[in-house]
């Protein structure tokens, strides 16, 4: 089932009654989610990603725009008629019901021609439980389960009615680091097996990048960029997206383009053909540095952190907008740790220029 969002907008009235200020939570969101894909909605808190999810589920009505499931306009449909499964951040399992009763609950609400016999319902519940591998725990109460198990129950409850769209709100945020890795693989597997179009919300870029077919980066209710995770990472459209994706984060400098050459401080560090003379922000990915004693960029060396496969060089520069510049280089490189400075050559495709006013990407001809 493809999901189409057309000019989707949500405006909340101001909390403060005296001011007429309104909060635009989602502004003119257009996106066609292809059938059977896993989509990550990504952004810092307050960017409107959860609101978007709730609008797709039908729990919140949009202030403007349309939502289509396939060719059917579901904008005015109430949640129960949309056929969506929703997994909440805190799972929202009914604490007084067993796992089995929790999973059966949505099926018991089906009426009319959708109504099922008790045997059918049980079979469906066990199918869903098996899919998320909790069929051994059916008689337990939620309080007797670990966080990861509760998460699986919540997913089973969402899947049991065979929804057209599966929605997950920060599915991993309540799990510890190890479970998180495991569970995100699990979500990926379940999504592949069921082929249900799935949208999940997260503020953790690593999480979104690792399992999504596509990611949507949002900021203050406005979609910044949509694309496959690697494409977005390699070609950020603006400084916000560049900064939001990647660990360690991108290093940002103030720079200047003079005569198609990029300058940081007094040094000309890179050729930038086709770019007019102007002041710019320069983003350099940590993996964009090549250790070279004759390299054009000189940084003040702070420390060297050995991480096994790689070495992380921490340095500083007066024109850097980050307090510590991190460069990741191969561990085979020999670094003189006592030196005050360190010189780098730059990989051109890991260096991005941004307009100083608009923070939009400046395209370099190659």
């Amino acid at each position, binding site marked *: 089932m493809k999901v189409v969002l057309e000019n989707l907008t949500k405006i909340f009235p101001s909390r403060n009654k005296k001011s007429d200020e309104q909060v635009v939570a989602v502004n003119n969101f257009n996106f066609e989610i292809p059938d059977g894909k896993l989509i990550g909605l990504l952004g810092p808190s307050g960017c409107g990603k959860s609101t978007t999810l709730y609008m797709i589920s039908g*729990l*919140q*009505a949009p202030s403007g725009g349309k939502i289509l499931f396939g060719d059917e306009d579901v904008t005015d449909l*109430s949640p129960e008629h949309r056929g969506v499964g929703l997994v909440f951040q805190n799972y929202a399992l009914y604490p007084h019901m067993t796992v089995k009763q929790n999973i059966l609950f949505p099926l018991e609400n089906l009426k009319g021609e959708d109504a099922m016999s008790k045997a059918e319902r049980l079979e469906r519940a066990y199918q869903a439980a098996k899919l998320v591998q909790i069929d051994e725990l059916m008689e337990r109460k939620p309080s007797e389960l670990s966080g990861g198990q509760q998460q699986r129950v919540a997913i089973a409850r969402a899947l049991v009615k065979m929804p057209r769209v599966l929605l997950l709100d920060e599915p991993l945020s309540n799990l510890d680091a190890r479970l998180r890795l495991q569970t995100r693989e699990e979500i990926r597997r379940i999504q592949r097996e069921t082929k249900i179009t799935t949208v999940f919300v997260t503020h953790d870029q690593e999480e979104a990048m690792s399992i999504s077919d596509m990611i949507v980066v949002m900021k203050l209710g406005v979609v910044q960029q949509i694309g496959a995770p690697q494409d977005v990472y390699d070609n950020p459209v603006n400084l916000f997206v560049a900064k939001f994706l990647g660990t360690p984060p991108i290093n940002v400098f103030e720079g200047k383009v003079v005569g198609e050459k990029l300058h940081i401080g007094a040094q000309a560090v890179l050729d930038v053909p086709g770019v007019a003379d102007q002041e710019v922000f320069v983003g350099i990915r940590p993996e964009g540095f090549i250790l070279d004693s004759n390299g054009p960029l000189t940084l003040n060396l702070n420390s060297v952190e050995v991480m096994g496969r790689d070495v992380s060089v921490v340095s500083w520069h007066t024109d850097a907008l980050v307090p510590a510049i991190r460069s990741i280089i191969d561990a085979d490189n020999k670094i003189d740790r006592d030196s005050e400075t360190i010189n780098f050559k730059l990989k051109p495709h890991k260096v991005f220029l941004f307009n100083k006013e608009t923070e939009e990407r400046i395209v370099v001809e190659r």
Partner: protein
Amino acid sequence: MVNSKHKWKAWLYLSPAIILLLIFTVWPIINTVQLAFMENYDIMQALGGKKFTLGFGNFVSVLQYDGFLQMLGTTVLLCVITVPVSTMLALLIAVCLNSIKFLNRFLQTIFFLPYVTNSIAIGMVFAAMFNIIGNVPGLDSSLVSWGIFNDLLGVFGIKPINWINMGSGYWENIFVMVVYIVWNALPFKILILLGALQSVNKQYYDAAKVDGTSRARTFWRITVPLLSPMITYVVITGFIGGFKEYSSIVGIFGDTMGPPGNPGQLQTMVGFIYDSIKKNQGKASAAAIILFAIILVVTLINLKVSKKNTHY
């Protein structure tokens, strides 16, 4: 959160509560204030459509009523004695209970027991404990029971006292009421204060212990200030309850509100209001408003005092 398309549903769910509250809570507030200011109000004439002139007549007649000062005095007296006594006792018991492990639950249950009683019924038990059988003329003097309380005093060499029987004095009556009211008021106060004590962070006490603070100092400088909001609550509800004292007196003395031969010796504000409801609703309303005003003032004073003494 949810865009409820059926806002009328909320009002449907609320309607039984709201209708009943309008009839039996909101209307009475308006009407009672009206009644209090109507001169010579009479319900039969009112039903016949008669309009009454407004004035302070009801208030004047309440204030000029012979027994008014005495019943106000009794009400205030009972409050002023029982509230501090029961609060201090309850605080002591709660602190002691909080410091023990063995028998803790058992003792808690015992101390709560007086709460689940019928105050009229247990009032009759207290009456029996203070009652003297044998002051009836012609009764065989070998068959005199002075009452268990007098028997207890006898152990200490105190002569029997006429607490509640015919001819008993005002102060003797008050003493009996104080004993009964304190006994009755303890469970609630212990429960509230113990609950508050248990929610106090144990680290304060550990810190005090490390600093070598004495028990008494810990009690006055840590326990009492930390409990002060709950102590205030208990004192205020105690005063409100005290100003409405009525059924405990009925329990011991009966509807006459006094010992035989001297009915009304222990009349209280609420007793007066109830006695007036059938006869003169205007006067009853005026008395109720005076009572409300007194309770309001006392509560405000309590809040003010406790604000000064609340240390955080």
